[in-house]
């Protein structure tokens, strides 16, 4: 039983990172209808950048993330402006194929700049706390708290600020928003900046918790989308629940079945949910 709880606890940390990735994907999808698949590779770029800042230059972990986030935001805005905006009025399939092309470019760029070796971002959070036989590593706690704070921050940003309001207006009805004087181009840029900054933070947390390597970005993008499918498309609470469910089921699978097949099992969970509840756990019918 204690082992079971321990695995659930471990799963929560990585699950919160999945939610962070999924949040970046869902804001883009909500506003622009783009399945921004390159998000995972952009997150890896941010992770590598954080690695260079913190391990090579000796900047503290959180300062390194804070430096990498604007860089990622600028890259995200460039991607939106140069690659996605030209096909805004074309069939959605075109934007998706562009996302795949961008993924190849970003993966290739990461490979060229940072090499093919696996890297881990070293953090000073090496302690382990014990609570009634349950072990909580300080690093997992830090990751969880960071991810939760960022999710909360963006939620407040979307719900309470004027820019957030215009973002939601475009998501609800693009034409009506344009008629009300919302600058759609500005909103698109803002959304990509926020989404990419979140992605960079997620990449840095992944780099600290697991490792950065070629191909990891793609698998995180898939998991981000799996979270959205699990939770129900377009539902923010769904994304949070979906991320935690995916993280915990993966952790349980790794602990009790096989760590080599943990990705296979988490994808099977997604497919099972699709079969039983095609609208997702919290989605509307």
């Amino acid at each position: 039983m204690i082992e079971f709880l321990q695995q659930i606890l471990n799963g929560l940390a990585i699950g919160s990172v999945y939610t962070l990735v999924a949040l970046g994907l869902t804001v883009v999808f909500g506003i622009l209808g783009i399945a921004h698949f390159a998000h995972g590779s952009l997150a890896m770029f941010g992770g590598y950048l954080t690695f260079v800042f913190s391990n090579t230059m000796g900047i503290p972990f959180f300062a390194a993330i804070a430096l990498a986030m604007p860089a990622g935001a600028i890259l995200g805005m460039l991607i939106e402006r140069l690659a996605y905006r030209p096909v805004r009025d074309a069939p959605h399939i075109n934007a998706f194929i562009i996302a795949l092309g961008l993924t190849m470019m970003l993966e290739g760029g990461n490979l060229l700049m940072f090499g093919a070796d696996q890297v881990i971002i070293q953090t000073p959070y090496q302690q382990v706390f014990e609570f009634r036989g349950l072990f909580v590593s300080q690093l997992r706690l830090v990751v969880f708290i960071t991810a939760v704070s960022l999710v909360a921050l963006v939620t407040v940003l979307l719900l309470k600020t004027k820019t957030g309001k215009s973002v939601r207006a475009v998501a609800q009805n693009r034409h009506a928003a344009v008629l009300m004087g919302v600058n759609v181009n500005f909103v698109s840029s803002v959304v990509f900046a926020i989404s990419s900054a979140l992605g960079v933070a997620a990449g840095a947390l992944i780099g600290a918790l697991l490792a950065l390597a070629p191909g990891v970005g793609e698998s995180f993008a898939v998991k981000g989308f799996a979270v959205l499918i699990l939770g129900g498309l377009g539902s923010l609470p769904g994304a949070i629940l979906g991320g935690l469910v995916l993280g915990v089921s993966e952790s349980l699978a790794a602990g009790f079945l096989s760590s080599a097949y943990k990705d296979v099992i988490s994808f099977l969970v997604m497919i099972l949910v699709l079969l039983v509840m095609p609208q997702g756990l919290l989605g509307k019918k």
Partner: protein
Amino acid sequence: MKRNFGFPLVVGVAMVLGALALPHAMSSPYYIHLLTLALIWIVLAQGQNLMQGFVGYVSISQAGFMGIGAYASTLLTVNFGFSVWMTLFLAPLFTGFAALLAGYPSLRVKGHYFSIVTLAYNMVIFIVLMTFSALTGGESGIPNVPRPSELNLFGHVFSFEGRSNLNYYALVLFFAVVATGVCAMVLHSRVGRVMLAIRQNEDLAEAMGVITSRYKLFAFVLSSMLAGLAGTLYAHYIGFLNPEPFGVDQSLNVILAVILGGSGTLMGPIVGAVSVTFLPEILRFADSFRLITYGLILVVATIFLPKGLVPLVMGLWRRLRSQAPSYKT
């Protein structure tokens, strides 16, 4: 409505004759090797085009299903002594069955989400091929995958052994023609029209009483069977099998081939498959930039050339013809 089948048929026959003659014009056996790979890629890309071009659903699992076909055929021949001639039919059938199981839940989600689910399939297939070493040999792979046995046709004996074998080239060409023919038949049938209707407006098609999920599943299974066939042809040609060519990257390359050539056309995948096979040769000077270049081509082609090379060339050809002086008074 009477269709004019004459012109495409003439072009098709001319292309097959040209493809048969081409190896004899090649000085280096290496180019015969590349041409064989290009023909295998045509089978793969025609399958991809069924989903991507006709139905309008981008599947990112074509390389994964190619792997299923390749491993099914290899394991049947190496472990159970099946003849390659039998597995050339059995392996695609098995792949189709796998696609049936995989397609049913994944086609419950629409558009992009379908693509993501298929990508998850490709990852699952790749992980299983890599990890389940007892069956697949893992990363070190399976050596000595046999070629088809000798074929006795009307007293002529055709052997398929040896590098850059012209008989194997002809065999692959045969299957590339079959794959293209099957796609042409589907496209011009009622099923094909429903598939095009789904691409144009799925909601409308459903409102007209079409059970779209059935047609999507049919296209997905057929597409994967062609991938399985391509995998079988690949495994018995290369003679050594490991999971490396069946990863997500390769599925993205198939998508690139279809987009570059022209999705939704029959010629497009052919042009795209040949381009993607020969592209690494042209880009050899920039090998470490290959991934970036491929991605850039995909992005630029989608923005500026969304219909692909074939419709572009056809359009130019028509413009030239219409501008030519006419001799009517």
